[in-house]
């Protein structure tokens, strides 16, 4: 008797069902729980108040990222209190913590994959919506709220209603200069900010397979910007090559056993998705967002569009943009390279290659915030820090930084950024700030040109 063909997401889901009953959500086992300082303190308090233990400290790992300083200067006492609360909670409950100042510290979605804790077929959760990043390895990974964080701490499980599945197939060769960031911005522009609600996205097709792990992480990272809690890519040799170099990968016979299981994960031929979207890779161009949600995005060759509705008109007013303005005529005040979307070594290499021997345009503020202290050290070994510094960029310590404007790395009211982060919501990078989402290559070229630009625009 054969089993019905299944999608990758369905396989991972089915292998983690602890309890299933008619009319109830499935109870899923969680293989890895990532914790950070902002969404966990109330959850640990909840455990204490109920007198509950943390069920699996060995499957829980914590870091400080959202709120940490990335440059010199005093830290406000409210932030210190939050970081101290995480240290105290980790000590009390026996959780491994990579605190600020530690070599292992970094953005939670950068350190999981770099340590090899993120592996195919796992269920991974974190009190952060960009947990979808880990889906790049063929893991089912999604963001949860603080009540759910407490639930996972106490039970290592989560009751969940199974979402639908959506195939997003990007077939063909990506044109030169088109990066993973442009792929996902193109996808979101097509399906909208609510297009993935209630679904797990599976990114497929030759253009996705051609991406390295870091590019796949960029794509999966922004699944939530299309409304999907999770996005996945089938594991393949690219995935295994990354994992083989990581400290937490299994070794010897365990590696062989793991490989055998991982190879059973990709979607079966004939498996049905609840929805399917097809995108021609060859039609993609570098993208720049013009509005206040990530679907309000056009290509760099376009102009600011005529508002199609009230929301778009509101967005244009907030962004202080007029329809018909060429995107290349827009001049940002700040360039930010960082965030869980684009702060990995490949991202920094791409940006540095463009900045080598060039200078940031006069008056423009530019900063690079590596995704982890390990990424920072690797970049320094390659001399990338010098390239950035000579070009006029600030070279910072690891953290979420200006992606969400929780620490002092913020836009001033009215200030405009070209940012490699994931959200251009009103005030996201600081109250009154105006964010344009771009790839690392466009961010670097824009920093040099002083207006939105591609590397080709800079000439030889």
């Amino acid at each position, binding site marked *: 008797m054969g089993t019905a063909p299944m999608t990758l997401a369905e396989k991972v889901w089915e292998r983690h069902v602890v309890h299933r009953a008619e009319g*109830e959500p499935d109870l899923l086992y969680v293989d890895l729980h990532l914790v950070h300082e902002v969404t966990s303190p109330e959850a640990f308090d909840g455990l204490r108040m109920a007198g509950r233990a943390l069920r699996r400290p060995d499957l829980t*790992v914590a870091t400080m990222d959202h709120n940490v300083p990335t440059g010199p200067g005093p830290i406000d006492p409210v932030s210190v*209190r939050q970081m101290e609360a995480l240290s105290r909670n980790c000590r009390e409950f026996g959780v491994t913590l990579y605190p600020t100042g530690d070599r292992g510290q970094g953005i939670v979605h950068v350190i999981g994959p770099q340590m090899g804790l993120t592996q195919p077929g796992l269920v991974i959760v974190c009190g952060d919506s960009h947990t979808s990043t880990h889906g790049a390895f063929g893991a089912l990974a999604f963001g949860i*709220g603080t009540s*759910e964080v407490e639930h996972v701490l106490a039970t290592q499980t989560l*009751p969940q209603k199974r979402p639908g599945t959506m195939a997003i197939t990007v077939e063909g060769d990506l044109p030169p200069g088109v990066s993973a960031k442009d792929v996902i911005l193109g996808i979101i522009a097509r399906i909208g900010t609510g297009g993935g609600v209630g679904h797990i996205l599976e990114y497929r097709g030759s253009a996705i397979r051609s991406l390295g792990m870091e590019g796949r992480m960029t794509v999966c990272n922004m699944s939530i910007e299309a409304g999907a809690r999770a996005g996945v890519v089938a594991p393949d040799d690219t995935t295994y090559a990354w994992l083989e170099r990581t400290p937490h990968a299994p070794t010897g016979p365990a590696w062989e*056993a793991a490989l055998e299981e991982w190879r059973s994960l990709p979607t079966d031929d004939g498996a049905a998705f609840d929805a399917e979207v097809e995108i021609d890779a060859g039609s993609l161009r570098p993208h720049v967002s013009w509005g206040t949600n990530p679907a309000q995005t056009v290509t760099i060759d376009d102009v600011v569009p005529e508002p199609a509705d009230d929301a778009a008109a509101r967005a244009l007013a907030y962004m202080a943009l007029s329809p018909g303005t060429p995107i290349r005529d827009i001049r940002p005040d700040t360039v930010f390279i960082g965030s869980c979307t684009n702060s990995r070594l490949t991202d920094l290499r791409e940006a540095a290659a463009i900045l080598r021997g060039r200078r940031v345009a006069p008056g423009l503020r530019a900063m690079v915030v590596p995704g982890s202290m390990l990424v920072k050290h690797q970049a320094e070994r390659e001399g990338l820090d010098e390239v950035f510094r000579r070009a006029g960029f600030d070279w910072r310590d690891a953290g979420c930084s200006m992606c*969400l404007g929780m620490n002092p790395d913020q836009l001033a009211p009215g200030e405009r950024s070209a940012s490699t982060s994931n959200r251009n919501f*009103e005030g996201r990078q600081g109250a009154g700030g105006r964010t344009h989402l771009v790839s690392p290559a466009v961010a670097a070229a824009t920093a040099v040109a002083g207006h939105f630009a591609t590397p080709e625009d800079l000439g030889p």
Partner: protein
Amino acid sequence: MRAFTTHTGRALPLDRADVDTDQIIPAVHLRRIERTGFGPFLFEAWRKDPSFVLNRPEHAGATILVTGPNFGGGSSREHAVWALEDHGFRAILAPSFADIFRNNCTKVGLLPVELPETAVRTLMGLVAAEPATEITVDLRARLVTAPGVEQPFAMDDFTRWRLLEGLDDIGLTLRHEDEIAAFERSRPARLPSLAPPPAPAG
């Protein structure tokens, strides 16, 4: 969790689509380590505009938020739900919600009610014409009523039961502790872990 059975109150019409959680509560206010005290920062940026609907005296004391599609997108911050609750809201009526936000609401006891877009428009019209209009959200009957409106809504039986009883999810899950332990025994040793597993009980 706070139980929800039925609630009657006045409504705040927030006629915007895609309201994200950064608007509901900006990140700079997420540095608190308590669940309380977020209400004063609800919609902080928009509130700076004196004409913003939340500032209008005729809507003071509203306990039901009526708003546009895809409410609560973006960040998973449960602080957004805490801020709405802290401000006094008990239910949100919208054509659709973002997944994580909706989940967070049902864990806290703030009722997310999905209604057809036409019904939301009707309710917004009623409240705009007469701010003192009272709306009743009855979870037992899965029904929203207002003058001239009787609109059923869907909510799965399990979530409804949990909300009606105000049940703690962790308590419910721990009824399956044996199954959790059995699942753990079946997990291969090669799976990633950070420390030696806890010593077996007994």
